[in-house]
């Protein structure tokens, strides 16, 4: 075993890459949950985003167009969740599971002819002089656009929730749909928009896996990242900055265990591979000790009676 083979600078740089899919999916789900909706279909929306983005990127040759397509794909799938939970008033837990099962099947079907195909590479930021700086250069200034977009999105969600009226209304709907309805806010419309936003984010997160992180298409390639993103929202106590922190933490664990595998640590590969999931459970346990700051109406069905 040779731990010195692990380069800390590259480790941090690849950590940011590994964290981005979780970050995108989790920040989207955070907005959904802030509106009082629990969408357990993140995994399904991610995998559909992954194949949509991949297919379009391969066919157009543009990863950027691929990402737009992934966002649309994720949002379209989340529209099914809207139909189930906001129109047909179905149980949100069951509907989220349905979305995930459906998304896994749909993506496998869509992706049949894309197995083994190589996607177009995503241009990385390259500012002469700055991107070449030691340490700071590879960590901060030589990633692809979507990674920076993810960071900007966290900042934007934070600002919107904290400082704007739209954010206030969203939080209000998530706290008490009855009260919001009594004040004349369109609960279903607001929640629908939040769900679509969450779907788009998850779709982009999925595409980041298939286009940047891996990059190729295999069935079921999201491998539970969507579920980790859901856990992350709990971990973050519904706070955007803590989503960022959590995503980097999980990204770090994933990258570290891959590096340890590569370095030939004397622990079987399978045990290293299960570590992100085990650590997710541990974190959930530690966090469930503290008082919940979940939106009060989370997961409850709204029906405007009379």
């Amino acid at each position, binding site marked *: 075993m040779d731990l010195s083979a692990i380069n800390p600078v590259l480790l941090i740089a690849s950590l940011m890459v590994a964290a981005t899919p979780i970050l995108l999916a989790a920040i989207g789900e955070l907005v959904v949950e802030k509106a009082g909706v629990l969408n357990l279909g993140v995994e399904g929306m991610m995998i559909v985003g992954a194949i949509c983005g991949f297919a379009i990127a391969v066919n157009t040759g543009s990863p950027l167009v691929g990402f737009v397509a992934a966002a649309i794909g994720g949002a379209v799938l989340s529209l099914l969740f809207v139909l189930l939970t906001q129109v*047909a*008033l179905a149980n949100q837990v069951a509907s989220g*599971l*349905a979305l995930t099962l459906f998304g896994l099947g749909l993506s*496998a079907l869509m992706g049949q002819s894309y197995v083994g195909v190589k996607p177009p590479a995503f241009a990385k930021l390259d500012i002469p002089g700055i991107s070449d700086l030691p340490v700071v250069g590879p960590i901060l200034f030589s990633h692809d656009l979507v990674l920076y977009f993810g960071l900007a999105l966290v900042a934007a969600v934070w600002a919107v929730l904290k400082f704007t009226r739209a954010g206030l209304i969203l939080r209000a709907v998530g706290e008490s749909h009855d009260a919001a309805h009594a004040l004349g806010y369109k609960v279903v419309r607001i929640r629908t928009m939040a769900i679509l936003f969450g779907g788009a984010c998850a779709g982009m997160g999925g595409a980041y896996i298939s286009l940047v992180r891996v990059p190729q298409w295999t069935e079921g390639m999201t491998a539970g990242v969507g579920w980790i993103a859901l856990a992350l929202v709990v971990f973050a106590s519904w706070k955007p900055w803590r989503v960022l922190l959590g995503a980097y933490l999980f990204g770090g664990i994933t990258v570290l265990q891959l590096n340890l595998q590569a370095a030939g640590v004397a622990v079987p590969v399978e045990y290293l591979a299960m570590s992100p999931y*085990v650590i*997710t459970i541990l974190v*959930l346990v530690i966090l469930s000790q503290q008082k919940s700051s979940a939106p009060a109406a989370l997961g409850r069905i709204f029906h405007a009676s009379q």
Partner: protein
Amino acid sequence: MIVLEKRPQPSKLWAYGTPVLAVLLTMIFGGLLFAALGKNPVDAIRTIFFDPVFGEFAFYYRPQLLVKGAPLVLIAIGLSLGFRAGIWNIGAEGQYIIGALCGAGVALAVYPLEAFWLFPLMIMAGALGGWAWAMIPAFLKVRFGTNEILVSLMLVYVAEQLLASMALGLLRNPDGFGFPGSRNLQQYPSAHNAELIAGTGMHLGVVFALIAVIFAYVLLSRHMLGFQIKLTGAAPRAAKFAGVNPARLILVCLGTSGALAGMAGLFEVAGPAGQVSIDFNVGYGFTAIIVAFLGRLNPIGILLAGGLMALTYIGGEIAQGQLGLPAAAIDLFQGMLLFFLLALDVLTNYRIRLRKGEAA
């Protein structure tokens, strides 16, 4: 404008009608999907739903119906108890794997001993393994209030890695020339979950599945515990007022579903699958969720739904071979079924009315 209006009482007619309607709608939309894939929709639907039971090779497929249906029903019965009480075990796949590992592990540990008590011991080990795996989310929920949905699901991935590690390491066949996978239990008489009557597909797992259905039916309709489960799901606060101990209910529901899933895993690995291999599990733990909902969380319904779902598995395989229908199309087809079911469920509790525009 279409308005939903809450019914004073849940509609009995729709409670039975929605699964049927959902199946019909799935056939229609599934047909459209198959047509989009360039297959003749009528052929495809007939191949999936008709051929396994009445087709030329039905004598071969009919037993398969039991083989595929038994694990689905066994797992779904366990899940339905929890789902009724609002306890969401979605990690049955993991409990299924661990049950199989524990049960097979017992047999492989004493190989090549032949003894009448070995298979019963394996069943117990399988049930115990699944139970223990489900007790992790149960204990964490009771003790720390941790979300059981996420924990049970995370444990599926952990179990899959454990399975890989076992198939490649501890349980690998020493005489297997280095290939992954354990000894074949089908060739180990005392450990083989053989057909009870040759050629029928009827193995001990099928018997256990039927017993589970009857047991759950009696529990839910005649026993205090069943009443408490239903009450907790319908009105948790009222359940607490009625003296239900929520922690106990979580342990019982998750434990039961884990034990049943573990048993299903053992029956599969010692019977149809034959050996512990990296991919002996084919997603029954997840499909069982669809079965549970399709059966409206009712034991009899689950029995019927399990049969139907087994049909789509077998029919799907035939369609794959004969029509070149992709395997994923069947997954999608099953997902679609769950969708329609959830969407139509609204009719049980609400009336749809056309009304003039309404403020708010």
